[in-house]
């Protein structure tokens, strides 16, 4: 096999070992690609699902661990996953605590808890599935919706700017921050594994896709009319993501920089 980062476990074995049931996600939902990468990364990192608590809030992203992961799952109220996770981690430091939720949940309604967990360097791992809007409630604007994007509540385009989640988390003091894209599953898998091995607070923004809400509302901008809508979105994301190394050489104009940022670098470093 010509894949250096190949997972050791076969796909059916990963399913049997870590998953309770198939997902209810829409066809081509990027969150499923994240699940795929996460399970391979967790398997490689040796994450013991019997000693791991997955905490999630409300929204499509929050359904990733619950009820799907064969582990303890704490599926909580909207926006507060990190606050619940704080209580778990502080009282049971020997357990791994992993928060997986969406951009609406973790950064729009729940941003306060994110910055405070980063400030405290609480040793939990936070994966924010960023699909640029509220998927489950019908495609409304979120704090990460790009300016100008069409959503159910911005029919003439989003009039506001969006959060740069990497800068947000870095500014709040997170010692490890990364951004990866589901359009690059190998990078994503490796990035998740790295984050899971971090000793302190780790925040990973995962650029996901929501074909059902974001895709339908904004499909005009994806060039490849032949591809399925999910693939057109993934292609757009792939061509618009640029690694840190490349961005440092070529600049990042019009691109989304992916990679990892560690404590000690200036928060505004590319």
């Amino acid at each position, binding site marked *: 096999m010509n894949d250096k980062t190949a997972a050791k476990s*076969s*796909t*059916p*074995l990963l399913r049997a*070992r870590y998953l309770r049931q*198939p997902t209810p996600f829409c066809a081509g939902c990027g969150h499923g690609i994240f699940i795929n990468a996460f399970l391979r990364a967790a398997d490689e990192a040796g994450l013991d699902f*019997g000693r791991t608590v997955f905490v999630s809030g409300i929204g499509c992203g929050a359904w990733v661990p619950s009820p799907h992961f064969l582990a303890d799952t704490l599926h909580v109220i909207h926006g507060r996953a990190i606050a619940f996770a*704080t209580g778990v981690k502080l009282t*049971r430091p020997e357990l791994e605590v992993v928060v997986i939720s969406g951009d609406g949940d973790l950064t729009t309604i729940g941003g306060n808890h994110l910055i405070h967990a980063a400030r405290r360097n609480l040793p939990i791992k936070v994966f924010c599935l960023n699909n640029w809007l509220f998927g489950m409630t019908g495609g409304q604007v979120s704090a990460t919706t790009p300016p100008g994007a069409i959503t159910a509540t911005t029919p003439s385009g989003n009039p506001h700017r969006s959060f740069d989640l990497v800068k947000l988390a870095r500014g709040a003091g997170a010692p490890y921050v990364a951004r990866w894209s589901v359009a690059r599953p190998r990078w994503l898998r490796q990035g998740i594994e790295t984050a899971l091995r971090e000793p302190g607070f780790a925040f990973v923004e995962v650029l996901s896709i929501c074909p059902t809400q974001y895709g339908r509302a904004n499909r005009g901008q994806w060039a490849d009319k032949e591809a*399925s809508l999910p693939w057109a979105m993934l292609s757009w994301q792939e061509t618009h993501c640029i690694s840190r190394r490349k961005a440092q050489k070529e600049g990042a104009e019009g691109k989304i920089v992916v990679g990892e940022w560690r404590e000690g670098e200036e928060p505004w470093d590319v």
Partner: protein
Amino acid sequence: MGKFKVELDEALCKGRACAICQNACPQEVFAVSDQPTPQGVWPLRVASPEECIGCRRCELFCPELAISVQEAGGREQEARGEGQEGPVVAPDYGGWTTVPSRLSAGVHFLSGNEACAEGALVAGCRFYGGYPITPSSEIMVHMAHRLPEVGGTFVQMEDEIASLCAVIGASWSGIKSMTATSGPGFSLMMESLGYAVMTETPCVIVNVQRAGPSTGQASRPAQGDVMQARWGTHGGPEIITLAPWSVQEMYDLTIRAFNLAERFRVPVIVLADEIVGHLYETLTIEPEIRCFNRARWPQDSPFGTEADDGVPPMPAFGEGARLLVTGSTHDARGIRRTTDPQTQERLVRRLANKLLAHRDEIDDWETHFTADAERLVVAYGSVARSALWAVQEARRRGQRVGLLRLKSLWPFPDEIVTRYAGDCREVVVPEMNLGQVVREVERCTAARVTPLPQTNGEIIDPRRILGYLLEGRWER
């Protein structure tokens, strides 16, 4: 046969609306099936496996993990979940135990808020998550000093929302947990209070009431949150609420709150007020206390019981139970059933019945001079101190008046009020609000019920109550 074996589980495939594998594959190995499934999905299929070059893009991209790519002739991996079991924990049925007091037996002189914190510690509280707010902050400060001494964990959270969330998380870690607050913070906790009810999470919330609405008078007493305690969270669940009237009861009822929380797997509210919180008086410590611990029994359903008023066992995280804790409507295992009418009705009824069917363990009250009373004063919290003085004075002047002091407010002790209101011709309810418990009292008796409301941020002067009892006046 090519060099690689490509398998696609059509039962998992979400079909041509996805088609990610087809687009991702450089070799056109995949094609849409000729037939849709009975569900109307047109799954992908492996059409040209011999073309596969083993790049594994399809396998890594598939959102459903429906595809596997193996080297042909490679060893099959057995699909079973070995090596991933959590620790096996012996059944622990919990129940009543006796524990030695943490303060030395005898008489102490403490504030109500300090007594509350000490009560929590002896009851077994080992996690406090809170946010500063007058007039409750002394509880938090005391816990910040004392919890580390007993191996507990203290954290000041970023707001009251996060405080109760952290408390609930800690409780699922198997740790007795609490927070304390006052009106504005209590309002912020309402959503997670409902979550604690729905997920059957034991925890204690102390509300040292201050004058509202809104910011109101932060350092002034009130009893304006009685209805909020019961009805503040949406969905209308039953919620145990206790009302201490002294420093002694700030201690005793906090212990009781933890015991009830553990016994019934519920959040319990200690509804204090600024007066009992800041009051200094003597507190008598017994050598030991009775203490209830939750049943932790990983083998049983953690979210349901056969009985419609049962309390399920509560394993903690990390004990191999693979818990599914959710605020959505769920079955006995925690699986969401968000459109099933039976599950919703059964769950909501059990959450109420597990308290309502055990009123004998919850209702708590005290009476003074009720045996021959023609008139009854019903009071709670610090106001009952004024009421008791007024009743004693009225007795001295020949009035046949008694006092029923409610120590538990919710579930409202209907039968107790009905019993003591009995043949009384009038029931009088002084409260530091515009009339909340009085409405409940009205439900429970045919006697004339008179509200004595006061909401000026001052304790109700005992002479005002006496004035009413003697002359029927309730003036400013």
